């Protein structure tokens, strides 16, 4: 049987088929990027957890929002427009206000001494996890000092405590969260501009060059926004 030569397939309609698929994907594609405020929730508290030690009042920046969307900051009414400045004051305490936290100067000698002490202790007790994490913490501070020089550090217990009522409007809650983040971000940006010449938000954590800079700035201005366990503040609904 004689073989007929293979007929070539007409490719003229290929474009039409591709067009059809293209239009389908064009229609179903959603290009919008989801943006938002990222937060890390605390893990659930076990029932047998001991009471945490009391924190000095001056080390806590208390922000309460009631069901009428009014703010009570450090037991005084405040407009949400002033919250950012208030939070920045709490973080830096430039006027040595006795109601705000005491910042301690981290000097090179001081940090080095702590590292030495921890290393000696660790040499005696090499399996102690607590010592290892402490050592890591102080070494982090040392690398921060090497990058940006000696700095004033917030007490470890200092934090912004945010509490809201069940009746608070969600938009108000977001505004408060946003203002608190804005305060920290502005401080970080200022420091980064001063030390590295670029804004903190421009630093890229994926670059090995920028990563230590980011860690150093975070050591100076840690993001410590804590949300209290939910409870009714004013019973409003």
């Amino acid at each position, binding site marked *: 049987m004689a073989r007929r030569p293979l007929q070539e397939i007409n490719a003229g309609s290929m474009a039409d088929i591709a067009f059809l698929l293209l239009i389908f*994907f064009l229609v179903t594609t*959603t290009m919008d990027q989801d943006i938002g405020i990222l937060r890390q929730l605390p893990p659930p508290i076990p029932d047998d957890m001991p009471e945490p030690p009391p924190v000095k009042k001056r080390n806590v920046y208390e922000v309460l929002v009631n069901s009428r969307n009014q703010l009570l900051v450090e037991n005084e009414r405040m407009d*949400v427009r002033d919250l950012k400045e208030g939070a920045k004051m709490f973080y830096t305490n430039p006027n040595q206000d006795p109601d705000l936290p005491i910042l301690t100067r981290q000097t090179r000698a001081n940090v080095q001494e702590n590292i030495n002490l921890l290393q000696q202790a660790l040499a005696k007790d090499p399996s102690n996890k607590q010592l290892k994490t402490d050592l890591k913490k102080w070494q982090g501070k040392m690398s921060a000092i090497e990058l940006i020089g000696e700095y004033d550090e917030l007490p470890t217990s200092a934090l912004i405590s945010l509490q809201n009522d069940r009746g608070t409007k969600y938009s108000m809650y*977001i505004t408060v969260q946003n203002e608190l983040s804005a305060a920290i971000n502005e401080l970080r940006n200022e420091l980064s501009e001063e030390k590295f010449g670029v804004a903190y938000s421009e630093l890229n954590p994926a670059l090995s060059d920028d990563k230590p800079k980011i860690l150093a700035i975070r050591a100076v201005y840690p993001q410590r926004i804590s949300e209290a366990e939910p409870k009714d503040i004013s019973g409003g609904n």
Partner: protein
Amino acid sequence: MSKFTRKGKKGTPAVSTASLPDIIFMLLFFFMVVTVMREDDPKVSISKPSATETEKLEKKSLVDYINVGTPIDTRFGTEPKIQLDDSFAEVADIQFWIKENRDKRDEAEKPLITTSLKVDSDVQMGVVTDIKQELREAQALKINYSVNKGSALDN
């Protein structure tokens, strides 16, 4: 003179369309790659609040959405309701839903899962607090408050 005039008819030759399928295929592949198919029908109306200190959500496939708002269909009432995937849900359903979604993903991706809360501006915090408590119980600790870009003071 006549030596240089072309014989036959003048006019531009037709543009070859042979490469058209290739061009279309290129576009097609682009859109196929960027398309995310997991788009749910909104059953609740949400007008998100605005904020300035926002971050982008990196990987869309690793984000689960919880929608809270008043139902579009008024037969379901005017109180804010929770929508998970394509259906209404109660606060108590969230833990199971989170576990189900977690099981669908690879082991390596599990710590990267973000839960995005799309909540209407006018919703009261009570329901949001309840949702957050459930998420904590379910160990879904990375959350995102979905917002629009804009001044937060106008909310």
